[in-house]
């Protein structure tokens, strides 16, 4: 119950150091903490390592963070999209490093960090270029790859509602990476549509317990739900 309730997104991300590892929630536009990323842009930290499923769409906040050269390295499952031109350009120019991780391994590595585990064996990626050089082991007849936990200095997450103890609920498929990233960062900052009094969220329905949340910032809900339109179609046919 030590959650901070800063007035603005900028207050919430004050103090992010250059070189920090920052997890950013969202699957495409859904669940992307736009206002927090914009605050990070304004705050000025650079040389960042970003952990995020995608690498920005069009001119959205994450795309601009990359465009402005603030991201040294991104750990990501699906950077290439029809409108990921800022990432594509930075990548082709060698201005950003990419660690490509299968999405389920990305999610599980984040969870492992939050859960205090030292890594796990997974069948995903075995025998592919993304497992090259990695330790392998056959478990019950299934060949597997060893994957390590992935943690961060800061997680930026978008949830639906919080209470003043930092308990969170999410909305539909905007839940995606938020609950696991909140567990894996030294500091977790969350934007929500509203902060309710303690006791307003049924304890049975809390998705992220307040223990994982350091600061909660209310952002006007109209802004939050008017996200970008879908920007990606299938990558193959």
């Amino acid at each position, binding site marked *: 119950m030590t959650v901070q309730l800063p007035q603005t997104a900028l207050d919430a991300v004050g103090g992010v150091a250059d070189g920090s590892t920052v997890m950013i929630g969202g699957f495409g536009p859904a669940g992307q903490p736009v206002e927090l990323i914009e605050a990070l842009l304004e705050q000025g930290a650079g040389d960042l390592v970003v952990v995020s499923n995608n690498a920005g769409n069009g001119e959205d906040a994450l795309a601009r963070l990359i465009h402005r050269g603030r991201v040294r390295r991104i750990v990501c499952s699906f950077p290439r999209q029809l409108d990921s031109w800022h990432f594509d350009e930075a990548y082709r120019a060698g201005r950003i490093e990419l660690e490509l991780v299968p999405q389920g391994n990305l*999610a599980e590595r984040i969870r492992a960090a939050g859960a205090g585990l030292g890594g796990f064996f997974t069948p995903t990626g075995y025998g592919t270029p993304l497992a090259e050089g990695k330790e392998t082991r056959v478990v019950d007849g299934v060949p597997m790859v060893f994957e390590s936990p992935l943690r961060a200095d800061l997680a930026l997450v978008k949830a639906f509602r919080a209470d003043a103890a930092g308990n969170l609920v999410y909305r539909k*498929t905007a839940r995606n990476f938020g609950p696991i990233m909140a567990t894996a960062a030294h500091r977790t900052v969350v934007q929500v549509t509203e902060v309710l009094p303690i006791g307003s969220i049924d304890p049975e329905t809390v998705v992220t317990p307040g223990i994982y949340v350091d600061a909660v910032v209310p952002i006007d809900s109209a802004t939050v739900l008017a996200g970008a339109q879908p920007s990606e179609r299938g990558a193959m046919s």
Partner: protein
Amino acid sequence: MSAETMPTGARGTTPLSTAQMAARVAADIRPGSYVNLGIGLPTLVADHLPAGSGITLHTENGLLGMGPSPGADLVDPELINAGKVPVTELAGASYFHQADSFAMMRGGHIDVCVLGAFQVSTSGDLANWSTGRPGAVPAVGGAMDLAVGAKRSVVMMRLLTKDGRPKLLRECTLPLTGVGCVSRIYSDVAVIDVGPASDGEAVLVESYGVAHRELEEMLGLSLASVSV
């Protein structure tokens, strides 16, 4: 028509349209199944699942019980599928986070996963994430998880590339997505079992508008016939 009732070696007289391919895939999915449809061609399968079949769709971004696209005025940017296209939720749906969603996939709880492919090998290896072109920006998403996670992974693809090269090969030449994971290929001209379904041998199940022999020449492979 289910796989069980489809006469072995049945043969249509013309290649299948995209819609017919989707219908053919759908016909093999048992009522009550939990299914993940990969992005691209496989998404079309949803339109051919019979009403009342009790088939439940999973999308990797955290929804079980995905429904069709909403009307334009009902689009919710926070309710999308793996291709980031707006969808709906059906009665009995549930939401969960990304680690739980991939645990559901990786843990073998999804009955069928239908995937697109660049290449498939006769032993069931899959290549569907990278064109291997130098300088291309890579992206993998959930492809590698989907390939190995489901109880049964099948591929829906045209059998030849646009420039006429076979996409079913003895060995994939593109970077792999998964090893020995594909059980069956549903294509425009044939249904072919591969990999774990047929001990690594390519077995012709059905063809459409091409003879067995023509298919073998097209692919440069010998195809076994379904044993009766």
